[in-house]
């Protein structure tokens, strides 16, 4: 039973694809409007809310202090958690972190971490003794499709506007967290046989594999992830990679526009 709706949906999506159309009238590489708000949550040292169609996510950044690893005595650390809680969709169930939520957190984390945008050495308090630990939490309130990009966008926006609460920890004056660049994620989903950018809920339900691409300021790749059942040819990847360059630049501009 559960599988019948997707089958009908898949047919419908295939027909739309044949005409190069999408369920909501967008063109193949067109994203939904993105609303981004930053610094909106009391108690979070950095925060952002992203609305993309029916998708709503909040990201909060918190800090605490920790002992550094002995082989990196001056290096702070970064942790990204994701929760796909039952609030976000009928399909999510309570319980320990699902593989889907683990993947979300880890892919967003890798994009930020591997871009080198965060100077881990700048998070040292006392070498060998105390460093800042940056904790990003992705909180999806409404999953209307493409939560990866919504979360990644909110995460980097929250980081770029975050304040390190040094005063609360009695280690000096608060200061702005410094980011050297703005890694941005773009995700593509195979729908009706061909890839589209920023799939919505129906397109994800009736679609196949997806590819998450994180690009840095210079257009270099920092993170890739293919998710879900399905395969792709190298030429297909080359095509979406070219599109990603354009989409990431647009999102980067939006993120920068929110900075004071």
């Amino acid at each position: 039973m559960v599988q019948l709706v997707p089958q009908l949906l898949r047919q419908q999506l295939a027909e739309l694809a044949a005409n190069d159309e999408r369920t909501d009238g967008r063109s193949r590489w067109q994203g939904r409007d993105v609303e981004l708000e930053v610094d909106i949550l009391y108690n979070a040292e950095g925060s952002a809310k992203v609305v993309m169609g029916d998708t709503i996510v909040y990201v909060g950044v918190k800090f605490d202090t920790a002992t550094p690893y002995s082989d990196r005595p001056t290096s702070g650390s970064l942790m990204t958690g994701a929760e796909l809680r039952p609030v976000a969709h009928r399909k999510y169930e309570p319980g320990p972190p699902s593989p889907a939520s683990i993947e979300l957190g880890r892919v967003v984390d890798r994009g930020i971490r591997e871009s080198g945008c965060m100077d881990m050495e700048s998070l040292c308090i006392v070498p060998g003794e105390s460093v800042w630990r940056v904790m990003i939490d992705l909180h999806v309130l409404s999953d209307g499709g493409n939560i990866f990009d919504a979360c990644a966008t909110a995460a980097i926006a929250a980081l770029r506007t975050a304040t390190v609460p040094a005063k609360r920890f009695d280690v000096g004056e608060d200061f702005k967290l410094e980011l050297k660049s703005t890694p941005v994620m773009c995700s593509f989903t195979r729908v009706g046989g061909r890839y589209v950018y920023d799939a919505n809920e129906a397109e994800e339900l009736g679609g196949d594999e997806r590819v998450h691409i994180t690009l840095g300021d210079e257009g270099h790749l920092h993170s890739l992830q293919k998710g879900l059942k399905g395969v792709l040819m190298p030429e297909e990847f080359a095509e979406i990679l070219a599109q990603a360059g354009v989409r990431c630049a647009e999102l980067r501009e939006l993120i920068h526009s929110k900075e004071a």
Partner: protein
Amino acid sequence: MMGGYGDIKLLNDDGTRLDGRAVDEMRSVEIKAGVLPVADGSAWVKHGLNVAVAAVYGPMEAHPRKIQRQDRAVIDVRYNMAPFSTSDRIRPGFNRRSREISKVTAEALESVVLVERYPRSKIRVEIEILAAEAGTRCVGITAASVALADAGIPMRDMIVGVASGKIEGVVVLDLDKAEDNYGQADLPMGILPNTGEMAFLQMDGDLSIEEYNLACEYNYKAASEIHELMKQALLDSASRGDA
């Protein structure tokens, strides 16, 4: 008393509170219904600096079957504080406080929802606290009530979450964070505004019977104020065509 609480002054000389409120004055409250596109019903409540969002899904088939009730729906409530909602980050996962609040909130909501109409089914109520500034359990109950109404779930009344407490020996309405940390008592209630019944009741600290009665009176007064905002939020949502 080193590091004791005796030194914290919570009342101004003119009898007002640190944030300027009168003893029987609520923090500002803002309510919206129908805020989450994919939920069957939802609400957003800002109460002071608290922010709570509630989503309702269902009625749906109750599974696993052992949670089914032959004669009614079960209400499955999850009260959750987002990791970034508090000053110190909260680790996700099992948490005794959240479990207790989820339990008593579910029991309160089961007292007003016409659960007999949906035998063997389940109604999921998800309460997410995005920012916490004292009184989140009450804010969560208010949000859940509006979300249930927004989902079209029949109820014999709404529940309004309100609290009073005691600071420096004086009973006051709606404790804020400092008052909650350094106060002497807290009395959160879930009040049915039409019938005047209580569906939710907790208290801790120290209250004489007289103090309890005054705190209770404040709570009822606040409940009817908040009730107006709840109704307005549902009207606004309906007129936007979302309900």
